[in-house]
């Protein structure tokens, strides 16, 4: 399972920013092993940088490793049967080797996460207000009325009106969109410098989803919070992110500034995704070009490109040794692709 066939392949680092990145992930590898000794490499050598105040998108389908990447980086995967390799630095501090209590403090204060299903991340037996003030008491030393007023302010700031009354609500009394707003308010309680949003709108209706995305957009613009947006929806990424990383089967296969990625997608998986979704703004007659097979038809990266079994641009070189992640055009363009036969620019 290990050892990439002895061929030394050095990947370029995607999204490398000038100056110091806030979050610096290098060669992150996550391996799950189960009781009967089968191991699954969920994340395989992922490197990326997140600059302060920027929005970075990680796009992929189920099983691409996009969520595992963020959970592993924050030490949220647990220890049993999980092996995490590589390095994750947040503001210069090594998150992977930090003692658990220190890490918890960083997660509460500096880094916050919101998830797809707010219902499962909220405590059903506590009021929304109690859950927010608890964070404020623990991390911000606010007490009593002070904490309550601050909690109400936070709810107001995420667009929940009548916030003093809402503080007394239980999670089940709120709609899905409202719950996600509460989650965002909780995430913002400590004014984190990094917010990781894992499919924040997937469970929501499109008009509610638009409200939540607009809210995140404004937050980034006004507070200089760095945002990592994990999603399967290329459309969401197109309107939100500065840099986009496309993941497939645990690795980044393409990485580029937003405009470059959509204007000149190079990896056959990226172009495949774009061609397989119908677009509202284009004439209806355009045929959809699906990606054949299913996401489970993959090749282990050690034996070549994982996408090769489904790829229409497969060449003999796709199989054998893993393709490296390399720059397309100049380094300044920050456009990288992991493909031996990339799609030519239009």
């Amino acid at each position, binding site marked *: 399972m290990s050892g990439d066939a002895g061929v030394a392949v050095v990947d370029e680092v995607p999204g490398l920013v000038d100056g110091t990145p806030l979050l610096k992930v290098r060669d992150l590898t996550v391996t799950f092993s189960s009781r009967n000794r089968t191991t699954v490499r969920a994340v395989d050598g992922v490197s990326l940088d997140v600059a302060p105040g920027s929005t970075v998108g990680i796009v992929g*389908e*189920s099983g691409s490793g996009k969520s595992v990447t963020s959970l592993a980086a924050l030490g949220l995967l647990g220890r049993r049967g999980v092996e995490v390799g590589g390095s994750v630095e947040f503001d210069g501090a090594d998150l992977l080797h930090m003692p658990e209590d220190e890490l918890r403090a960083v997660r509460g204060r500096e880094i916050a996460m919101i998830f797809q299903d707010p219902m499962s991340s909220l405590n059903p037996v506590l009021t929304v207000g109690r859950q927010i003030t608890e964070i404020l008491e623990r991390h911000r030393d606010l007490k009593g009325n002070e904490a309550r007023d601050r909690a109400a*302010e*936070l709810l*107001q*700031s*995420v*667009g929940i009106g009548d916030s003093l009354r809402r503080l007394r609500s239980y999670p089940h009394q709120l*709609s899905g*969109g*409202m719950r996600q707003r509460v989650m965002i308010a909780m995430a*913002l309680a400590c*004014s984190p410098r990094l917010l990781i949003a894992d499919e924040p709108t997937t469970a929501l*209706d*499109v*008009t*509610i*989803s*638009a*409200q939540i*995305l*607009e*809210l995140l957009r*404004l*937050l980034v613009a*006004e*507070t200089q919070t760095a945002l990592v947006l994990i999603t*399967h*929806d*290329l*459309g*969401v*990424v*197109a*309107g939100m992110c500065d840099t986009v990383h496309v993941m497939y089967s645990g690795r980044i296969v393409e990485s580029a500034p*937003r*405009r470059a990625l*959509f*204007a000149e997608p190079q990896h056959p998986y990226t172009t*495949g*995704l*774009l*061609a*397989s*979704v*119908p*677009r*509202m*703004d284009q004439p*209806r007659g355009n*045929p*959809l*070009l*699906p*990606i*054949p097979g*299913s*996401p*489970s038809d993959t090749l282990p990266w050690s034996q070549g490109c994982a996408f090769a079994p*489904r790829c229409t641009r497969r060449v003999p070189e796709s199989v054998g040794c893993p393709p490296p992640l390399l720059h397309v055009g100049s380094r300044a363009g920050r456009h990288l692709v992991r493909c031996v036969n990339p799609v030519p620019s239009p």
Partner: protein
Amino acid sequence: MSLLEVRGLQVHFPIKRGIVLERTVGAVRAVDGVDLAVERGRTLGIVGESGCGKSTLGRAILQLEPVTAGTVAFDGEDLARLKPTAMRAMRRRMQMVFQDPLASLDPRQSVASVLSEPLRTHGEKGPYDKRVRELLDLVGLPSSAASRYPHEFSGGQRQRVGIARAIALSPELIVADEPVSALDVSIQAQVVNLLEELQERLSLTYLVIAHDLAVVRHISDDIAVMYLGTIVEVAPSEDLYARPLHPYTIALLSAIPIPDPEVEDRRERVLLRGDLPSAADPPSGCRFHTRCPYRQPTRCDDEVPVLRTPEGFPGQAVACHWAEQVASGQLRPASSPVVATAPDG
């Protein structure tokens, strides 16, 4: 004559209280007065968000939900008047494709058994092997799939099995309820293309219900937009994106992310405030008035708008008092109420 014609359809679910002596204290008006028609060989898409009643509408059309009022006429026959045996016989002409392909297949049935069940039910003589192979081939599955069980397949393959079951009796109408939303993005197009192919080969009529407007538009000839149990707009798919008339349609369209930064950066967003009101107690007048960015002081709150063809827009129908003024730009949306302020330090 249209293959399917629905008039004034209502499906109300009673809300009951009490354990021993149940009493009805109200009703959820899941579908509340829907008119629609689908011509033979065409596809009507029904879009709307969760809770708008679109799934209930689909099931009520197939007489799988108790209809409170209104009529569903299939090929001229009022389905509610059919006796149970006649209705069961009628079912071979109208079939359904479900959202969750795993949940809609009995986990204890092999694919062969799934596909022969409709044939057996409608009195066709076995053996069914040949027809099963034929059906699998139609949906692009190998004949070896016949002896397998649902959990052995991927999501896309399961949906193919579900589609094969739906076409087993060579029906005329297929109601597809969210046929692709449970599937991975890269698989959705496979199933959409399969549905289109089958429509052409078997001259099927589709009623496609989904929340994803882009997918619905791709597959449908006409689209009906639902909000809180009623249809607010009907338009040919070509026109809907170019000139949405109902404020809800406008908001819905502007909320759909488009995978193109150039388009995204230029777009004007019409954001709705708040959440969907309860279908047990819908707002008075126009049901959308509580969230409408174009709401006017008169008519909206107290006068129920009817579905009508506004002047200058033949082929479209809209249930809005101010459709003409909204379309001409005479009325502008109220500004976005999403966020008051960002929290400070």
